[in-house]
């Protein structure tokens, strides 16, 4: 490592102020700090600092996403071979799916990081690590058939309009990955909904076995065909059509365990989203005026993006509620709204994305009321004190 370090030290002056490649300073710093933790020492304030930084934090989230990603790759292959009625080994299926997903990840990262590098250079900041997670989340919430140019466009929209115009990482109101999905959802609905987009090759209609439908469980339910949905176990394991990373509740729960054990993801939000979803589902069960409402409440957890949204999207600390009490309300409302939109609104088979974006808007308001109650308490204490003194 010493020789690498020496090489970096040798070329470093070129990238500093006044150097030949001054314009690439942010890029250089970003890459350098990726390879080596900086030698910078504390200058004021606390002399020692915790070993954790945002890179570590984001790495934990990426590790937590890996089970969903790996299963997603396998499932892309599985669904493809099912659709053409062919048989293949597990590794073959995984490899097939992996090769389908890899371009999506590369496009998402290169477009997003490219914009981040430019923004950091303009602002004179260091590169923020936030996109490391966003860049992986975006492909995972897309249908596998999404054209690469659309993905690139959506990623650019998410980073520029969803984040940078608000002031960059830490300032955004909406979850950037969901902004990317919402952008495509409303701009190119044909590519984001329906029965064809979830399975590789289905849109082209090649060699499809007779009677095979690529409909997601949510689409079936929305059509009132609740009897046709796969078994609970299949949906829990995730061998069903859907966005790349969202199908396996099992893989997502492994990720949730990683987030909760490390303390990086708020368990309060995760738990309360599920609680809200369960509550709303049970309420529908109680009325059950149609077949969708009769669907057992816990089925909602394993269908569509509910679990993925609860674990990886709602827990975004920047766009979510920032007070601990607020997190309970925020998560609960996401759960409630998700199921409400799913069951009641026929135009949107999936409600999680809209529910989270909606609650992103309300998160500051929730925090406002929580903070106000603390302020009132303090003022009340002050009043009592003056009464005693006077």
């Amino acid at each position, binding site marked *: *490592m010493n020789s*690498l*370090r020496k090489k970096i030290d040798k070329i470093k002056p070129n990238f500093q102020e006044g150097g030949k490649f001054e314009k690439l300073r942010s890029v250089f710093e970003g890459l350098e*700090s990726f*390879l*080596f*933790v*900086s*030698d*910078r*020492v*504390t200058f*004021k*304030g*606390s*002399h*020692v*600092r*915790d*070993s*954790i*930084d*945002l*890179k*570590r*934090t984001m*790495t*934990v989230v990426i590790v937590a996403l890996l089970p969903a990603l790996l299963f997603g790759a396998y499932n892309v292959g599985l669904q493809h071979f099912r659709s053409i009625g062919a048989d293949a080994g597990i590794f073959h299926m995984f490899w097939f799916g992996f090769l389908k997903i890899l371009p999506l990840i590369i496009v998402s990262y290169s477009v997003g990081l490219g914009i981040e590098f430019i923004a950091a250079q303009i602002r004179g900041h*260091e590169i*923020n*690590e*936030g996109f490391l997670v966003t860049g992986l989340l975006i492909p995972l919430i897309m249908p596998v058939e999404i054209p690469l140019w659309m993905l690139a466009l959506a990623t650019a929209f998410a980073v520029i309009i969803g984040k940078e115009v608000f002031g*960059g*990482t*830490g*300032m955004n109101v909406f979850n950037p990955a969901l902004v990317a999905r919402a952008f495509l959802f409303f701009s190119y609905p044909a590519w984001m909904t329906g029965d064809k987009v979830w399975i590789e090759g289905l849109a082209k209609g090649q060699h499809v076995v007779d009677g095979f439908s690529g409909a997601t469980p949510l689409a079936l339910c929305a059509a009132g065909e609740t009897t046709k949905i796969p078994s609970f176990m299949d949906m829990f394991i995730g061998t069903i059509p859907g966005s790349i990373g969202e199908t396996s509740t099992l893989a997502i729960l492994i990720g949730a365990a990683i987030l909760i*054990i*490390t*303390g*990086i993801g*708020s368990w309060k939000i995760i738990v309360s989203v599920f609680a809200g979803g369960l509550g709303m589902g049970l309420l529908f069960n109680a009325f059950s005026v149609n077949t969708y409402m009769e669907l057992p409440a816990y089925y909602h957890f394993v269908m569509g993006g509910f679990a993925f949204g609860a674990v990886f999207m709602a827990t975004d*600390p*920047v766009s*979510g509620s*920032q*007070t*601990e009490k607020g*997190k309970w309300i925020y998560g609960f409302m996401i759960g409630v709204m998700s199921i409400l939109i799913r069951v009641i609104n026929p135009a949107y088979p999936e409600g999680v994305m809209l529910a989270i974006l909606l609650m992103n808007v309300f998160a500051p308001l929730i*925090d406002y009321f929580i*903070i106000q109650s*603390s*302020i009132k*308490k*303090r*003022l009340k*204490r*002050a009043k009592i*004190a*003056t009464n005693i003194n006077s």
Partner: protein
Amino acid sequence: MSLSVKLSKGLDIKIIGKAERLLAGEVDSALYGVRPVDFPGLIPKLNVKPGDRVSAGSPIFHDKIRPEIIFASPVSGTVVSVIRGDRRKLMEIVIEKNGNDYIDFGIADPSVLSREKIRESLLVSGLWPVVRQRPYHIVANPQDVPKAIFISGFDTSPLAPDYNFIMDNSSESLFRRGITALKKLTDGKINLVLNGKGDSSAVLKNASDVEISQFSGPHPAGNVGIQIHHLDPLNKGEIVWFVNLQDVLAIGRLFEEGRYNHERIVALTGSEIMHPQYYRIKSGVSVSSMTNGNVKPGNLRYISGNVLTGTSVGQEGHVGFYDSQVTVIPEGDYFEFFGWMKPGLDKFSFSRTFASKLIPSKGFRLDTNLHGGERAFVMTGQYEKVVPMDIYPMQLLKAILSEDIEMMENLGIYEIAEEDFALCEYICPSKIEIQSIVRKGLEMMIKEMN
């Protein structure tokens, strides 16, 4: 009946180098330094110039706004230099010690003195600055009468000195005398807060004229700000004074000996000290008087105070006015290949993202590396875990950054000081300079109120 408060929020940083309960004796040095920067919120004006002869107790500078607040020379000798920083900011006054002459302020019994007389004695002798106030954590205004006076009987900061050991080696009568003098300065109570964990020194347990309560929990349970918050919270317009435990002895000494003698016991700590132990010193003594021949080789940082709130003074620096501890740790000026990706068996963290959480460890050799770059606020719910107060730290910090005075007031700026938020700065994954932000907020409030 004493009140017992148990706190669960906070963090004891696992760092090695605690001082052994061993008093190595008294140390002296050729040079002594007094740092006006130890006293935030004041505008120091010099009374002396290089070459001037001073006695112990001679005024060397005073506050421009309240000129009655003077700061005294700890020893007799000659002023050798006045060190200034950016924009001619007064950084340090260095005195070369010779002789043992002192100014005689006269012996007195504080129990028969009036409030005015005691205030007067403390002011003219230069001992007044040991009395500080909340809000703002600055030297107290002599014109005020505080609603209470707080004395924390223990320190929970990293490698903190054991005050029980210090008190066992101090005079009980001086302590009693100091309390008697302080009692005259308030109409309210004197709160002495003891460590709820373990037994306290007899000097503290048997103290009279004080309201004893017990606090237990991780750092910052020993911080006076936390104790005030739980026992007698500060509202807008209220004032509480506080005094360091060993400064109570100094007050007692002023009346018993009739001279300015800011003597105390300090703990020499840190992983780079070969024999971490206790020393008897006078404030302003050279750090090197204790560390010479007692440190391990390497690039080291010499801190007057603890690793969270202390001041980096360098090898030739001096012990600060309020510090009962000197810490020496290694500098962290090295690059680490993929340091953020390693499992981290040897890395201490408040978070649970490093493998070191899995194995019990006595302590870590922590250095001054920042472990990352400065970023925007991203994570939430972290600061709350290390601030055992009914306060929203992040919202308060954001109010300070946006200079929203009313919001700062509403969110409890009067109840905090840098030291109470130091752990937030330690655990912050975005490496934000939180203590500087807090001081900026306090200075804004001082300006607003005057």
